[in-house]
Structures are given as C-alpha cells and as structure tokens.
C-alpha cells in the first residue's frame, strides 16, 4: 500500500491521530486506575468508604452516557446520509446528555462535600475524586468539541468527517466510565 501525501485525506489523518491519542489516554487512565486497584488491594477500610457513594445516581449516569454514545453514532450516520438536520439534532442531543452527566456528577460532588467527604478525607476519597475528576474533565472536553462540531454543522457538512473522529474520542470517554462505574460504585 502506498499512501502519498497528496492522496491521504484529512479524515484518514484525523483518525490515525485520534487512535494514537486514545492509546496515550488509555495509559493515563491505566496509570490512575492501576494505582487505585493496587492501593485498594493492599489497604483496608475502603469498602466502608465506598458504601457512601450513591449507586442509583451512578447507574442513571451510566445510562445517560451510554445513550449519548448512541446519539453520537446516530449523528455520524446522519452525516453519511448527508442529513444536515439529523446531524445537528443528534449532536445537540449528545451535548445535552453530556451536560446531564456532568450535572448529576456535580450534584454528587456537592452532596459528598456537604457530608464532609472531600479529597483529603482518606485514600478512597482521594482516588475517587482523582478518577471521576479526570473523567469529568474529559467529558467536558468532549462536550466542547461536540459543540464546535455543532456550530460548523449549522454552516454545512463540508468538515463533517470530523464527527467520526470526535465520536472515537467520545466512545473512549464512555468506555473509561464503564471501568470506573464498577470499580468505584459497585465494589463495597
């Protein structure tokens, strides 16, 4: 296979770059999650702390985030059918679900802090805030990216191939949550 610089499309380059970015992000979360698992298996009293988390809220959040991945895929599908209205609608829905996720997460943080469990209240809480905080930052970045895509979709679909690339990132952020959910909320 020969790929000349004149031949390779921005879509192809973007996808290659995104996969490498995701590879390095896997290592960021891998480092943090690995540290958490190692610390937890060698320490005691973590389960009692973990029991303070709200499993129902996190379950709702899991559904919200999974649904947002679906709408992201539907936005790309709409782009493939050159359906500008569909692209705008599904991108907006994805952004909305991302914001709902962040809202629920924020209310969780607020109630934890009201109950006096802050990052400095012990090892479990330090890791809890680290992992969910890092993840929430990634959700925020995804929401911003999706919003930029929404704005450009209003002008037309000429750079719509970026939806697929942003989608890769968004699904990755989703998958990180799939790891965080059982490791933090379901393990007490």
């Amino acid at each position, binding site marked *: 296979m020969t790929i000349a610089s004149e031949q390779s499309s921005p879509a192809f380059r973007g996808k290659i770059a995104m996969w490498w970015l995701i590879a390095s992000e*896997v290592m960021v979360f891998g*480092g943090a999650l*690995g540290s958490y698992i190692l610390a937890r298996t060698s320490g005691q009293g973590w389960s009692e702390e973990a029991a303070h988390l709200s499993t129902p809220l996190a379950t709702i959040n899991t559904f919200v985030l999974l649904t947002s991945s679906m709408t992201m895929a539907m936005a790309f599908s709409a782009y493939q059918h050159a359906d500008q209205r569909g692209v705008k609608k599904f991108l907006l829905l994805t952004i909305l679900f991302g914001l709902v996720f962040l809202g629920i997460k924020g209310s969780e943080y607020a109630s934890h802090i009201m109950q006096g469990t802050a990052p400095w209240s012990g090892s479990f809480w330090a890791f809890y805030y680290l992992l969910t905080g890092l993840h929430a930052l990634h959700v925020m970045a995804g929401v911003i990216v999706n919003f930029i895509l929404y704005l450009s979709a209003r002008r037309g679909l000429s750079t719509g191939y970026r939806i697929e690339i942003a989608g890769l990132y968004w699904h990755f952020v989703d998958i990180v949550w799939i790891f965080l959910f059982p490791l933090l909320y379901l393990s007490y």
Partner: protein
Amino acid sequence: MTHPPSITPTPVSIVHPAHEARGFWRTYVFTIDHKTIAKQYLFLGICMASVGSYLAYVMRWQLAFPDESIPGFGFVGPETYNALITNHGTIMVFFVAMPILLGAFGNFLIPLMIGARDMAFPRLNMLSFWILAVAALVILTSFFVPAGGASAGWTGYAPLSARAEYTGVHWGINLWLLAHALEFVSFLVGGVNFLTTVITMRAPGMTFFRLPLVIWQLLTASIIFLLSVGPLIAAAVMLLMDRILNTSFFVPEGGGDPLLWEHLFWFFGHPEVYVVLLPGLGAVMEVLAVFSRKPIFGYRWIIYSTIAIGFLSFIVWAHHMFVNGINPRLVMPFSITTILISVPMSLIIFSMILTLWKGSIRLATPMLWALGFMVMFILGGLTGIVLGSAPANIQLHGTYFVVAHFHTVLLSVVIFGGFTGLYFWFPKMFGRMMNESLGKLHFLLTLIFFNLTFFPMHAVGLAGMPRRIANPLQYESLTAVQPLNVYITMSAVGLIVAQLPFLINFFWSIAAGRKAESNPWQAATLEWSAPSPPPHDNWGDTIPTVYRGPYEYSLPDVREDYIPQDRVHPSRSTWKAE
C-alpha cells in the same frame, strides 16, 4: 469510511500551497513551516543548554570549593544546591535533549525524508512548540518565586515532594510540575503528529522498509513516549493534589505509598532514556552510511532491534528502585530484562561497526562525531550492565558512579549524537556549510574534556561519594577524593568552554558560511534531493517518487558511487509509479 458523494473532503494538494511566507511574524515566529519550527526547537534547546550548563558549573564549583563564593553566582547553601541539581536534571533532559533530538530533528527530517511537504497537522505543530516555549518560561521563572526553584530532585521523589513543608519550597515545585505538564502535552501532541505524518504522508514508493533508519527511530521514540508518559501524567496530577488539596496519595501517614510515585515516575523515566537515545542513534546511522560509502549493515535487523528495545524499555523500570524497598522477588526479573536490553542494543552497535568495515571512510566533522558517539556510547553502556545487575547496583546505588554512568551514556547521545546530526544536516537547514577546522577543533576539545570530566566520576563514586550532597568535605571519608573533585570541576569548565568554537562556528556559518549545494555529502536519502535550504513546500511543484532503499552506496554498476532514492536507474529500478 464512506463519504456521501456530494461532500468529499478537500484534497490536501489544494490546501497546501496556502502557507507561503506572510510577513515577519508568520514566517519566523508563529510559523507553520516544519523547517522553521525545527529551527525554533533547536534555538530553544541551545538557549536552555546554556542555562543547564551554567547550573552544572555552579554545582561543580560548589563541590570543588564548598561554601566559598562562586564566581558568577555567589554563595550556594544546601537549599540552593538542591534547587540546582533538580533544575539541572529537568532542564537538560526535558528542555535540551528532547527539543533538540526529538523536536528539531523530528520536525526537520520527518517530512523531508519521507517526501512530504509538511507535517500532517502544521498548526498543531506550531502549537506544540509554543506550549514547550511556555513550559521553558515557567521553569525559568520558578527560580525567582519566594523560596526558589524546585528542590526535590529531578525525580521528585515523594514524600519529599508531596508536602511543601518538607522542602520549604511551595511554588517552586508547583511551577516545576506545571512545566512538566506543559512539556508532556507539547511532546504528546508532537508525537501524535510525527506518527500520523509517517503513517499517512509518505511519498509514492516510500514503503516502510525504505524509510531511513532515523525515521524508524524517531517513530519508535514517539511511540515509547506516547505510551509511557500517561502514568506519569496521572502521577503528576496526584502529586499536585497532594501538594494543593492535601491528599495523601504518596504520603505514608495519610495511608499513601511513596513507592507508587517511584513506580509511576520510572515507568516513564526509563523509557524516556530511549526516547532521547533513539533519535541520536538514528542520526549516527545516517552519517555512518554516508561517510563510509556503504549500505548500512543489517538494515532490517536494526529496525527489529529498535522495536525490541522499545518493547523492552517498558519492563526494566524497577532497576532504579532495587534499594527502595520493592519486593526482593522483583529484583531478579528486572535485573534480567535490564541486561537483556543490551542484546538488541549490541546488535545495533555491531551493525554500526560492520558498516564501517572495509568502507571508504571520509573523516569529515559529522563522521568524527559519529565515531566519537560509538566509542563513548559503548563505554557508557558497559557501566549500564554493571548497574543493571542487582548485586553491583545495591552497592553503587546513590553514589557518583550512577552520575558518571548516566552522563557518559546520555551525554554521548545528546552531545555526540546531537552534534553528529547538527553538523550533518546544517547545510540542509541553513543552506550554508559549517567551517570544517572549527568543527574538528570543537570535536577534539569536547572528546578530551568529556572524558576528563566524566571518567573520574566513576572513581569518585566507587570511593563512596554520594550524589546530591552539597559539601563533600562534611564527610571524613571523602577528603581523600577531594583533589579528584577539583579536577572534575576544572574539566567540566573546560567542557563548557569547548563549546565556544561550536557557537562561533554555528552563528558565523548561518550568517556567512560557504553556500551549500543541494547534496554536499553525496547522500542518497530524500532530504538531499530538495534545494538547500528547502523552500516552503520542500520540492516545488513535484513530489519525489521513491524507487529504492535509503542506503544504495558503492554500487559496482553505477558511475557515481551512489543512487539517490528518487532517481530512476534502468537496471536497478524496483518500483514504478502508477
């Protein structure tokens, strides 16, 4: 993926000519031209190298004449000394070695050697550089905040680094962490750009096994960096939380584990050595082939060895921690992997030696540096085997022997490998030749003072002098080696002064050197087919087509003794453009 027929993405060939020179700022400062960005990395690296060398001079002077006022600095107390060693290490590794070897060489060579007009993401490339420039500013300003610069060692071991009251330095270490964060982002983005460029932008006919070795090595270095830096990013966030939010990830009294930091740091820290090594090694390979007029010996095996080194570099990190309280059962496996990595490394070294075998060697300045690299790197590598085996390591850990090993091996890469590349590609970068006599003088002085500086350090270390002490005279047992310390300091000053011929040569040649032709060294790789210096889009209207591998030298049936990669040759054309 499939695109709807009505909306095809804009072809790149239409986008590219847009970045012509547009005024001073767009041409020299906020440029998206990979060649200018490479020069920016180079100048940043040289500036930071002078800062790092100045810190080294102050440290060495303090060790030779403890607690006396240092010419050009003043009095150094233990706290200042800690800040000096920390920032010397950080600056030299992250702001000199990486910008020059990865930033400058990578940006300059990748598009030119694979036959592309620019990087895959030119604007992102500009962003990478400017993030790094901000990071460099942050680390320089960290000296001037209250309580001074970071002082927890360049490894930032916890718990010392995890609480401000342990070092007395609050903002210094926070800024140091911030500078790291920015540096990592810069090279992460840069690495993604490098990889994407090599994967998607190669000229017609440029298959992966026709890439010059330096490209393979830059590629491997980028992958190693991308995959190893993640855990340290997580660790840096954790350390910052420990410092600002008072969490206890790494503080034992709060239930944390200081060893965790060391694991996460060295999981990056060891591969980082190879990130710096591989581009330097690659530059030496190119020069060896050109100046021995021979194909590289074992091209594919060097590639496989490079990949093997990249893989092994991920499973050796705990050899930095043999005495730090890790499970003793881990010591043997990590000792084995550490020594195992010398197998692919030796394979590469032997390939280099066999490339020289019966070649028509031309002893131009770049070749001298390449030969110097080989000798010094083998010497430094030998002490690596000593330190890799656990029994010797436990004896020597934390002594000056480690400093000696580290500097011999890494400086042979940064100094000898770096100058190999710089003297070799200078004509292509600036369109002028460097002065050969000054270059040879620079090489000779550097080689002599390099050895006079770092070789006695082994002896000082074997005599039991610890690293990171501000005053060796505090220890009765070290008074015997103090004359040697004075000797090392004088040699180090000599090593710094030996760089003056280079600086003179470098700036004088940029301004008034002899004009370089497009291929002054008769090299076969693709970058020499572009004019010197290459114009904005590197080749004008056409992109070269590649017909063969990068090292076709001394062929019996050609009139000149080499064929460039992009030249059609009736009896030797193995690939035809469609």
